[in-house]
């Protein structure tokens, strides 16, 4: 990222408290165009809260959030989503009783503004189905299109969940522990899907599997007790003492 390019996402001095509990204090971090930023930290460090603030599910007490240079600190979630700022959730949030294709089409229609059509929506429905099938084909899940999501394996459900987000054609994608509960191979496959299908996509990835984070991210930010204690290249983070100390359970140096 060149110095004067507008960052895909800029988080500036964000703070949030719930009652007396300070969850985030003065967090500033930027996401460059096309960059993959890892976000790590122990449970309760404030990672998901930061996602909630960026996506508009929470409004920060202080600070601002800018999306492609535009202040969106108080914008509603649906406005941000349609602008291309999309997230996934810790739990799989695919619609279990809808088919795989319908899951993706629901997102594609929201993106194209056809989400509320009734009569005369045949074309919009066909276009969304087509977009869904194309994504599924590229993710090598085309033969699963007609199955209900509830009938898929957990790993496939997580991939469908991510594909639903990709069907929104995001410019920035926030992935909240997409690999949790997956095997190493499944997790790597999921990340691979995101990297190959998301064109010009900037991502922030929360994951506990440090091998994955250090393997795919350009930079890694470390949160601890609501503070950003480091944000640097994977190699620098591995050597960072504060980051090591914060990540009590895991030894950063050993993760490679």
């Amino acid at each position, binding site marked *: 990222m060149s110095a004067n390019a507008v960052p895909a996402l800029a988080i500036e001095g964000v703070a949030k408290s719930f009652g007396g509990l300070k969850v985030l204090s003065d967090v500033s971090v930027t996401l460059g165009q096309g960059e993959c930023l890892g976000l790590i930290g122990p449970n309760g460090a404030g990672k998901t809260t930061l996602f909630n603030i960026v*996506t508009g*599910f929470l409004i920060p007490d202080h600070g601002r959030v800018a999306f492609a240079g535009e202040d969106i600190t108080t914008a509603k*979630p*649906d406005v941000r*989503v*349609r602008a291309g700022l*999309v*997230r996934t*959730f810790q739990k799989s*949030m*695919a*619609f*279990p*009783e*809808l*088919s795989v*294709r*319908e899951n993706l*089409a*629901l*997102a594609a*229609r*929201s*993106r194209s503004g*056809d*989400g*509320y*059509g*009734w*009569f005369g*929506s045949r074309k*919009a*429905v*066909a276009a*969304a*189905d087509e977009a869904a099938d194309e994504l599924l084909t590229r993710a090598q899940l085309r033969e699963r*299109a*007609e199955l*209900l999501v509830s009938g898929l394996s957990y790993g496939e459900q997580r991939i469908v969940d991510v594909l*639903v987000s990709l069907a*929104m054609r995001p410019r920035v994608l926030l992935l909240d522990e997409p690999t949790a509960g997956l095997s190493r191979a499944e997790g790597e496959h999921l990340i691979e899907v995101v990297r190959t299908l998301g064109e010009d996509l900037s991502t922030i990835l929360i994951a506990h599997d440090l091998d994955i984070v250090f393997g795919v991210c350009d930079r890694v930010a470390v949160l601890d007790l609501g503070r950003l204690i480091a944000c640097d290249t994977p190699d620098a983070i591995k050597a960072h003492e504060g980051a090591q100390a914060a990540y009590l359970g895991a030894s950063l140096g050993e993760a490679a």
Partner: protein
Amino acid sequence: MSSIADGTGRVETRPASQRRSLPVTAKLALLALATAVPLLFAGDYQLRFLAEILIIGTAVLSLDLLVGFGGLVSLGHAVFFGGAAYAAAIASQALGADIVVMLAVGIVTGMVAALLMGIVVMRTIALFFLILSLIVGQIVWEVVFHWREVTGGADGLRGFPVLTLHTGFATIPLNNGVALYLASVVLALAAYLAARSFVTAPIGRALLGTRERQLRMSALGYSIPRIRLMALVASGAIAGAAGALYPFVNQYVGPNAVHWTMSAMMIIMLVIGGVGSLYGAFIGSAIYLGIQTYVSSYTDRWQLVVGLVFVLTVMIMPKGVVAGLKAAFGRRKDAERRS
């Protein structure tokens, strides 16, 4: 690629060629036959009774949009139906009872009532939706009950002009069982097709999404209040169309038509017939009204029979009578094939 709804509000998205399904002409022929049979064998009274089943069934169908596809159980649904019935009854005194005018009055009344209720309830779900819709419904009931000059108060309204159909060169009076029955068949069919197109269209899919995962729908950029409001208004329009014909078939409309017990009756019909199936609304209405009409001539305790049927349905066939019987027969066939 076509899609149809099944018993759970799911949509079948397999290509038509892979489904065991009758061709359209065969379906139309069956439908015509099913419509014609009562004309040959039923008397005027039975035809009027069938018309009532179809009209109430249409109202229940509109409720299925909310309950089966939006997870929104309303105890105020009678307001759309009964409100439209009152509006048509009152309008007919001044405008005459042209069926097209009556339907327009009913549909608009149902939509406006749904819009007003929607503004109150669209941000709520589950118990809060239930209670708020109940409260709005009971406010309307109070107004109807006490506004004697317009609604007839507790006595209700009766003595309407004859319902008519203008065809351009002749005016057909719809004052006998045959005509009212046929008008109700057309109403029920149109309502069913409208509801089916709603649930397979993007808006219906979005409604299903809000039922399944509200948070995810917001994260996909959908406005949940907007989806709920649209579903309510569509539901109100269908219930209103049904309500518009009700006074002319029933020859009376009273405050019970907007009372919460009417809404509860519709929910019971829907559960018996099958939530989320659309067609189950008519089955449930037929079973309930059948018990009410025929069992009540033997005993005053007909509601006990309805209650028993309801409990048995919920326990044995939670997807409704039709889906339950289908599953039971399917199992037997499978067993035969295996043996």
